[in-house]
């Protein structure tokens, strides 16, 4: 099963065919989606069921959790999904992302063909368990220091942010349509993420997926505009940076500029 009308390269076409060949025969995208959705909804239901007499300060856990998640997602993407690491778990993330997701979807073809391609789009189902375990320590600490409500709302925000990520990322890989083209945040994410899938930019640019907040803050965005401009940029290419490093298949020593201070090599 492949898209009928696509301008993907032969290399990408071959890669997608090979990837699909290797995906387990029992894999079912709708089941994958249901597991993520049901476990997320159940978790949020449990967390919010424990709320009693919520005070105004408790609600601060929601923006705090959302922003913390955005930062964690940005760092995970920048530091492990595009950089090989020694830990087998982190290395698996790099392989799954740089060597699979970015080869399967490129700037030439961002769409999946059917639900079996969701295997390379969603995180594995056990991600919800890992996220819950990682959320426990900060939420428990906040629950003891500030209030139990704050702790439960922090758990809610972190789980909700992960589900938000999955929805936004999924929307980045669906066919273009009126809804995704006009929905704020989603249209911004689609352009932002497609630029990230440009193989000449993918190792350094547009690392935020759910939102471009930390790309804006830390200078890794391909846009040259302010905070709200970043959030609501939509499909516009008016503010693209002109001086981004674009990699090349055959860089020429005479044509490349040596940047001033972008190395972490010693």
């Amino acid at each position, binding site marked *: 099963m492949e898209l009928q009308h696509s301008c993907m390269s032969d290399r990408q076409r071959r890669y997608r065919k090979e990837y699909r060949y290797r995906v387990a025969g029992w894999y079912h995208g709708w089941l994958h989606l249901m597991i993520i959705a049901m476990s997320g909804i159940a978790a949020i239901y449990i967390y919010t069921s424990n709320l009693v007499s919520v005070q105004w300060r408790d609600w601060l856990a929601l923006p705090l959790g959302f922003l913390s998640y955005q930062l964690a997602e940005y760092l995970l993407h920048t530091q492990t999904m595009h950089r090989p690491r020694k830990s087998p778990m982190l290395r698996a993330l790099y392989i799954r992302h740089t060597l699979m997701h*970015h080869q399967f979807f490129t700037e030439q073809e961002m769409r999946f063909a059917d639900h079996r391609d969701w295997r390379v789009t969603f995180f594995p189902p056990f991600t919800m368990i890992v996220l819950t375990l990682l959320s426990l320590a900060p939420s428990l600490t906040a629950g003891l220091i500030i209030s139990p409500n704050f702790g439960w709302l922090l758990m809610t925000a972190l789980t909700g942010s992960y589900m938000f990520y999955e929805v936004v990322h999924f929307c980045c890989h669906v066919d273009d349509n009126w809804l995704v083209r006009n929905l704020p945040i989603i249209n911004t994410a689609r352009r932002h993420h497609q630029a990230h899938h440009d193989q000449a930019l993918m*190792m350094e640019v547009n690392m935020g997926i759910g939102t471009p907040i930390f790309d804006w803050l830390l200078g890794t965005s391909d846009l040259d505009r302010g905070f709200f401009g970043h959030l609501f940029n939509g499909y516009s290419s008016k503010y693209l940076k002109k001086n981004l490093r674009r990699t*090349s298949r055959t860089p*020429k*020593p005479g044509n*490349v500029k*040596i940047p001033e201070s972008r190395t*972490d090599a010693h």
Partner: protein
Amino acid sequence: MKTYTGDRTIDGVKVHVDGRPLPDKADIQRYTDMGFEWGYEGQEPRQLAFALLFDHTDNAGLARSSSEAFMRAMVANLSNEWHLTSESIEEFLRIACS
């Protein structure tokens, strides 16, 4: 003239010289345990820079001293799949040493 190629495949990162795998030469100079990568500035691209320079010059001292500049100028600018010749490495060394 040698030809160097690199690609990110489903089975891992592959770098070849004239069709044979390029050794990382970590026994001579180790910048990382993670093997090769490219398209950014860091330790894995520097290991690749060192391996390419060493393969071309067979001179560990020169490869070591030029590896950071070569990494920043060339390896960090390599795309997802790439193709270099010993001619372009030679050209880099000529520019870097002039």
